[in-house]
Structure formats: C-alpha cells, structure tokens
C-alpha cells in the first residue's frame, strides 16, 4: 500500500482542524478541531510504524492524553458557561491590551 494517501489524509485533517480553529466561535467546536489535528498526528504515527512499533505505542499514549485534554477543556468551558451563560469566544475579551 502506498504511503501517499495516508499522508494526504493526515495533512487534510490538520488543515481542516486549523481552519476550524481560526474560524469557529464555539469553544467546544474549537476543541473538536484540535482533536482533528491530534488524529492527524496519530494517523502518521500508526501508518508509518513499519520498522518498529514505537509509533503505535506513542499513538496510544496520545489518545489517552487527548482524552484528558478534552476532559479538562470541557470543564473550563462548562465553568465559563456557568459564569457568563454565553460561550461565544468572540464575547470573551475582558483581558486585552
């Protein structure tokens, strides 16, 4: 199987994730976009672990870490919702300049 289409898939996911990060306004959706980038990295790590399994092992750790990140992230978002009742990131700019 050729490598190219895995690489294209992963690059595509990164670009879509980045596009989401810079255009979306809902923090949960931004978190989703970040998950897409992490998945892209995992595709690389898993698909190209031909010579050794380190890549796959690493990918399993990355999955665990991304779960932890989502956990903390959602907690923060929920707390923001509790305080402001509005979770548009474009409205969160009390700290600036």
């Amino acid at each position: 199987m050729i490598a190219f289409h895995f690489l294209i898939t992963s690059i595509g996911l990164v670009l879509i994730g980045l596009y989401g990060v810079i255009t979306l306004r809902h923090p949960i959706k931004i978190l989703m976009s970040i998950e897409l980038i992490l998945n892209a990295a995992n595709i690389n790590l898993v698909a190209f672990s031909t010579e050794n399994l380190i890549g796959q092992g690493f990918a399993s750790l990355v999955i665990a870490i991304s779960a932890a990140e989502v956990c903390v992230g959602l907690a923060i978002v929920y707390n923001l919702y509790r305080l402001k009742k509005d979770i548009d990131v474009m409205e969160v700019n009390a700290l600036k300049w």
Partner: protein
Amino acid sequence: MQSLMLIISFLVLISALMVILSEDMVHSALFLIFSFGGVGALFLSVGAQFLGAIQILIYTGAVGVMMLLMIYFTSKEGKSIKREGKYSGIVLVGLLGFLILYPSISITREVGGTKGLTQNIGRLLFSDLLIPFEVISIVLLSAIIGATYIIRREDH
C-alpha cells in the same frame, strides 16, 4: 482493499469538514464521532488492531459522548454561532497546505507491515515505553483532579 481505504479516507475528510461546517452542534459532534471511527478503520487497515480498537473505544466512546453531553449542558436552543473570517481562513490554510503538500509528494515509503497486535503493543508499553505509560496515568489523574475541582459546586 486499496479503493476501500481511499473511500474511507475520503469519508474521514468529508466528515471532518462537516464538523466545521455544520451549524448544529449535535451534528458536528456526530460527524466528529464518525470521523474518529473512520480513522479507526484506517488503523485497522494497516494492521494496527490494538490502536483501531482503542481509537473507537476512547474517541467515539469516551470523547465523543463527553462532547455530546457537554453540548446538551451548555447549549441554548435556537442559537447558532456563525463562523468568522471564512475566506481569509481558506487563503491562509491553503497557503500552509501548499507548503506542506509540496515536499510530501516525494515521500515513497510503504506503510503497514508490523502487526500492531495487542500483545506486541502490550510488550512495548511495559518495556521501552514503561515510564511514559506510567506518566500517562498521572496525566489522567491530574486531569481528573483539575476537572472535578472546576466542575464541582462549592456549597458553603
């Protein structure tokens, strides 16, 4: 097999795009879960069985459900938040895409080969990756402590 994989890749990308584009939060989350599942299938296709399994378990099972739950908690009905700067985003992302894709065309490596069976991965996790694997448990613990502290209601 090859064409099947291509179709899955295509579906992964399309559903990832739909995560960004769909206006409804719940749809986004469902597309995300679908996209995760597709990535899991890709893992299986290169022989990474263990990874494929935990991808589906953790991502679609844990992460996706957590996202859905939080969407239900925090969303208000009828309110959808529009995107910002769609076109400038496309230009920038396209530029970055060009810069990465251009060198990657010449990659001619094979993929797959080693079998990512559970026992192989398990052996790896308890030899070379022993300390990172242990540290992951600390990461999870610290995330749990942090998240529960923030979510918790202080009653006094």
